């Protein structure tokens, strides 16, 4: 393997006018040309999206969402549920951000229903889907039970959710099943994601199941041989033990 000669390197360094030099007017970023790996102190793509306080839900919507989450992952003696984990705050931020907008998704038409194997085909990105479905859900509950979803008993709420899941209850404008699948998935996300996103408050869910979080070195534990490993969980912004009480 022969590297270019020093003279050639020098020529490139000094002239800067080879074919590889970025022609004027190029927007693209250029790398290479003997300049090594770029690096600057203090730089990095630290978590940003979804970590800032943001709101999408109206108070009514928020109440409905909170009630749904509380049934999907209920509170109990055995451990915290979506309520303690503040999943509704997570969802609020998510719907207000790029995820709710479906910004990274392919949302060009035409839209068609698709087979079971073709995935999400709604013309509505998540936030829109939530908005419409929540309205329809509350309307359905008012018609059936005289009050919005949040006002129903826990038992009745479970029945309604089961109805959505098993496609016994349908909506007019959006697919109730698609909505149910989505909010279940998002609730699990909010329950188990890093607290920086608004849910899993105080790492309560990680504590509950025994997940040590963002730790990055388990070399001393590889030979656990089936024994439990109990380490207090750490999140991206740390844990209580990082600061003196």
């Amino acid at each position, binding site marked *: 393997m022969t590297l270019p000669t020093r003279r050639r390197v020098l020529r490139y360094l000094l002239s800067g006018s080879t074919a590889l030099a970025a022609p004027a007017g190029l927007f693209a970023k250029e790398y290479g040309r003997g300049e090594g790996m770029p690096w600057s102190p203090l730089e990095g793509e630290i978590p940003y999206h979804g970590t800032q306080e943001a709101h999408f839900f109206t108070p009514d919507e928020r109440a409905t969402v909170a009630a749904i989450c509380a049934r999907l992952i209920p509170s109990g003696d055995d451990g915290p549920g979506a309520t303690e984990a503040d999943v509704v705050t997570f969802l609020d931020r998510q719907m207000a951000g790029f995820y709710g907008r479906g910004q990274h998704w392919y949302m060009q038409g035409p839209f068609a229903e698709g087979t079971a194997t073709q995935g999400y085909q709604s013309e509505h990105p998540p936030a829109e889907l939530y908005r419409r479905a929540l309205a329809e859900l509350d309307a359905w509950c008012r018609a059936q039970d005289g009050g919005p979803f949040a006002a129903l008993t826990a038992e009745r709420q479970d029945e309604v959710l089961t109805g959505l899941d098993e496609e016994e209850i349908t909506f007019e404008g959006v697919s109730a099943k698609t909505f149910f699948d989505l909010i279940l998935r998002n609730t699990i996300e909010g329950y188990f994601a890093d607290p920086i996103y608004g849910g899993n408050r105080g790492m309560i869910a990680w504590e509950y199941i025994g997940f040590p979080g963002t730790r990055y*070195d388990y070399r001393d534990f590889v030979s656990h041989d089936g024994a439990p490993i109990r380490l207090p969980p750490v999140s991206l912004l740390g844990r209580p033990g*990082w600061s003196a009480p």
Partner: protein
Amino acid sequence: MIRTIAAAGLACALSAGASGAQELSFSQVDRGRYLTLAGDCKACHTDLENDGVPFAGGRALGTPFGTIYSANLTPDDETGLGLWSREDFYNALNEGIDREGRHLYPAMPYPYFTLMTRDQTDAIFAYLRTLEPVHAEEPENDLPFPLDIRLSVSGWKLLFFEDKSFVSMQDRSEAWNRGRYLVDGPLHCGACHSGKNLLGADADGEYLRGGVLENWYAPNIRGGENGGIADWTAEEIVEFLKIGRTSHTAPMQRMGEVVALSTQHLSVEDLGAVATYLKSLDDDLPEDADTPDQARLETGEGLYFDNCAACHAADRSGVPYFFAPLDSSNKVVADDPSTAIRIILGGARAQPTEAVPSMLAMPPFAWKLNDAQIADLLTYLRATGPRPAAPVSAGQVAEMREYLAEEH
């Protein structure tokens, strides 16, 4: 003129001839090139931050007194050394005086280069004359009154500068003398690694015991008993300077620049001489350090395990040649912890060299850890290593954080 033994250790000697052809002969130019590598001239005299042309000057050099811009060394008639003579050039390096007789600011380390002989400055001059002339005006220096008046430097020189030549010690080996010549002369290690007084000159008694430049603490590089690199062997010192890696650490930031542009290109013999000399420098025992309270040690330990162990290992042994073992780090336990603080806040990267092209980088923690946390972490590391050092305060971290915020 005291004859210098050191000259023999460098590239082949050449008598100072008068003819132009001999002046620009291959051997003379090559000797000059080697000396500019040893002196690391390109680093200061190239605007590295803005992809400047090599040796065309214009780099902003931060000093405690303000910003100074480096000169254009290419042989441009208007803006460079085109009209300079060899005599002019010698005077600049030997006495700190330019062609017009004005004083140079000692940001140009002529207090060190004064040890170089006329022979050597002629060779450097010959090399510089082979460069493409580049028309480049340097910006105005940004210094407060009265320092912006060059005459003020004459006062400084009166107090602190001595035009001297190198004197070798007869009772020491040739390698030791050569190493001392290089360290105190062309390599000008003390410019960063020796503590300075308030007026920016080398402070008494702080020779190579660590110094601050541009808010980087250049650590203690005495290699003898109790020195900052007492744990290093001479071979490791050579390794560090030549390939940019040892089992202990890698050169980073400013020292990375020095290795990349200067020492990796020097001969192994010369680097060995430097190592021989540095290993001979003992230091005093450090003062006993205060023990911090237990709560800080506990939080510091937790912080270490959660944040640092993935690279530096749970027992701080790191990965030799990859991630620094922390117990032998002369930055962690330095009197002045500012380099350690700065690295934790802003991150650092191991300098890639020709021999070791990997750029291993430590990420910045500024967004993730607050001042108290970084202070507790460093306090823990400093208190529990083999050479205990004093605690670090949250205030020290805050200061560095503010500085970095301004710089970026």
